């Protein structure tokens, strides 16, 4: 049974198409994240699911019931807002029980629910306070408490962590994940933060310009992106895109990368990863996608990886982050970022031997930006 199903939903605002034929379905208990840059339509999609905005066409089903033309109250959902939207004149207790009161839940039951939720979120000591007397993190908890008080079919989270400071955001992220694991709730979560998306989601829908570009598990979206946009959006530092020309033929493709002032670099493409689409690209320029962690030091005792194609490059900048070192290297027509171990001794300006894991590299069509292999 799908907890939520969206069928060909379109949304237009004054002639502008904000959602262009969006379809997706999630199972009960699944954690779906809608991610994308601002203006991609993810918040509009969320509001359409909530019933706060009518759709122009298409259908929305919650628990196998068509709710397209139902009011937000009739959809049996709960929502956590970016601004928390706590009712300013009510206490925390009042905020949490308001939805129950509106649904005519008896007082004793409401009280019990408030206690249970407050206990779960560790806000029992705040119940008599007004929202203005709470810190940002506490408000966030109350906002979640308000959603958890009812047991709706779907929870909607609209960028719930983006108003918190960095440390608190990481803590709350873990807490949301724990809650989901514990309660097994169905969650649709909007964020523009790809790290939140990777860490929380069962499945990620990457959106752009009113379309879902890719819907898949964090692993699929990260390692098997459908196009350059998805590949570049997920991951930090983001994937390196290197212009190369494709040579050879089936059974032995090679990528030639020309860097100014250097000898041309030729990387063999693994035979096991060849695709039919590559054949018509031979002789043309294509885009090679390499994540920073696809590079490693030549010395396998340091990297623990003894496979990979050797590459040598001059280091222009080294940025130690503590856990590892990010290197900037000229490669192709620009610079690339490589992530190496913290013990690696690097001197900017000198050459360094690296290995590239071509088994995880990806290829894109330079015209359509779609995935080739």
């Amino acid at each position, binding site marked *: 049974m799908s907890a939520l199903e969206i069928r060909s939903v379109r949304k237009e605002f004054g002639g502008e198409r904000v959602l262009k034929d969006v379809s997706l379905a999630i199972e009960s208990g699944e954690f779906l994240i809608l991610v994308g840059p601002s203006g991609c339509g993810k918040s509009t999609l969320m509001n359409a699911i909530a019933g706060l905005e009518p759709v122009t066409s298409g259908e929305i089903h919650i628990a196998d019931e068509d709710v397209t033309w139902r009011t*937000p*109250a009739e959809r049996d959902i709960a929502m956590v807002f*970016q601004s928390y*939207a706590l*009712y*300013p004149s009510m206490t925390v207790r009042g905020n949490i029980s*308001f939805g129950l009161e*509106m649904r005519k839940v008896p007082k004793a039951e409401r009280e019990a629910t408030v206690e249970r939720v407050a206990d779960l979120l560790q806000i029992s000591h705040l119940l008599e306070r007004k929202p203005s007397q709470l810190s940002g993190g506490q408000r966030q908890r109350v906002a979640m408490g*308000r959603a958890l008080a009812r047991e709706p079919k779907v929870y909607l989270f609209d960028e719930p962590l983006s108003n918190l400071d960095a440390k608190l955001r990481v803590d709350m992220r873990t807490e949301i994940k724990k809650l989901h694991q514990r309660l097994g709730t169905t969650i649709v979560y909007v964020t523009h933060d790809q790290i939140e998306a990777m860490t929380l989601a069962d499945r990620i829908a990457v959106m752009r310009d009113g379309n879902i570009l890719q819907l898949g598990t964090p692993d699929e979206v990260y390692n098997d992106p459908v196009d350059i946009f998805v590949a570049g959006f997920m991951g930090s530092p983001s994937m390196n895109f290197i212009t190369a020309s494709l040579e050879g033929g089936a059974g032995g493709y090679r990528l030639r990368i020309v860097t100014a002032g250097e000898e041309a670099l030729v990387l063999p493409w693994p035979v096991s990863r060849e695709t039919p689409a590559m054949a018509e690209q031979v002789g043309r320029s294509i885009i090679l996608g390499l994540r920073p962690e696809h590079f490693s030091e030549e010395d396998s005792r340091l990297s623990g990886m003894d496979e990979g194609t050797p590459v040598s490059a001059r280091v222009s900048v080294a940025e130690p982050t503590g856990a590892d070192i990010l290197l900037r290297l000229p490669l192709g027509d620009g610079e690339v970022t490589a992530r190496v171990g913290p013990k690696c001794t690097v001197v900017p300006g000198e050459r360094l031997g690296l290995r590239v894991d071509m088994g995880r590299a990806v290829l894109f069509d330079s015209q359509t930006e779609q995935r080739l292999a």
Partner: protein
Amino acid sequence: MDNVIRRRTPAARLGRMAVYAVLLLAALFYLLPLVVMLITSFKPLQEISPGTLLSLPQSPTVEPWVKAWGEACTGMRCEGIGGYFFNSIAIVVPAVLISTAVGALNGYALTKWRFKGSELLFALMLFGCFIPFQVVLLPMAQTLGWLGLSSSRAGLILVHVIFGIAFTTLFFRNFYVAVPTELVSAAKIDGAGFFRIFWRILLPVSAPIIVVSVIWQFTQIWNDFLFGVAFSAHNTQPVTVALNNLVNTSTGTREYNVDMAAAMIAALPTLVVYVLAGKYFVRGLTAGSVKG
């Protein structure tokens, strides 16, 4: 609030004293009419002509106040302005409450339940703030006649409510536009409807703007003369009209002390309202401009 850092030289002190002296004089000048009215209203009639305006009463008396309230002649009748004072209250209180309530609902609907043309509707309503009263006297008289409300209190209340809505809607609309719409979305999801959201979520945070609306409307309606004189009969006249009649009644000697007492009585309620709630008035007018 002297935030300028400088050494306190004797010259600077002198300059400062001069500033305060000028300010004090200006304040006294503005207070003078009120002082003269108060002094005169407590003088017996025989002290008025020989004395100067500012001389204090030799034998203070409340007689003029008593007379103004219960005995003075307003035109043909000699019942004082007390009855008309209550007429005013009976007109002002419902008119203020109704126009504020309607303004609040309008402001809420125009900001939180936007519909096609809601901005245009608001712009048109704003015109109401700029329409001169005299322009509508005749059509309004005709309308009140059709409604069977001519010369009645209900008719006056209706006129004041209609004229007040433009202003109260403006106040509440501008106040509610700053209230996050997500609050309304959250309440909708929680299962509350149009009136419930208004009553439980918006109204409890509206105190500052309610005060503004009430003071504004109270002052406007209480001080109204034109509608009062045009749309009332002798038994429904507001106190402003009665005051005019009292002062203009030309039989016998002019009782300036009674005139002054009557004017004070007619002006007192707006003063009291402003003194009691003026602090909130200023606070409400600036609400939203600075984050609380």
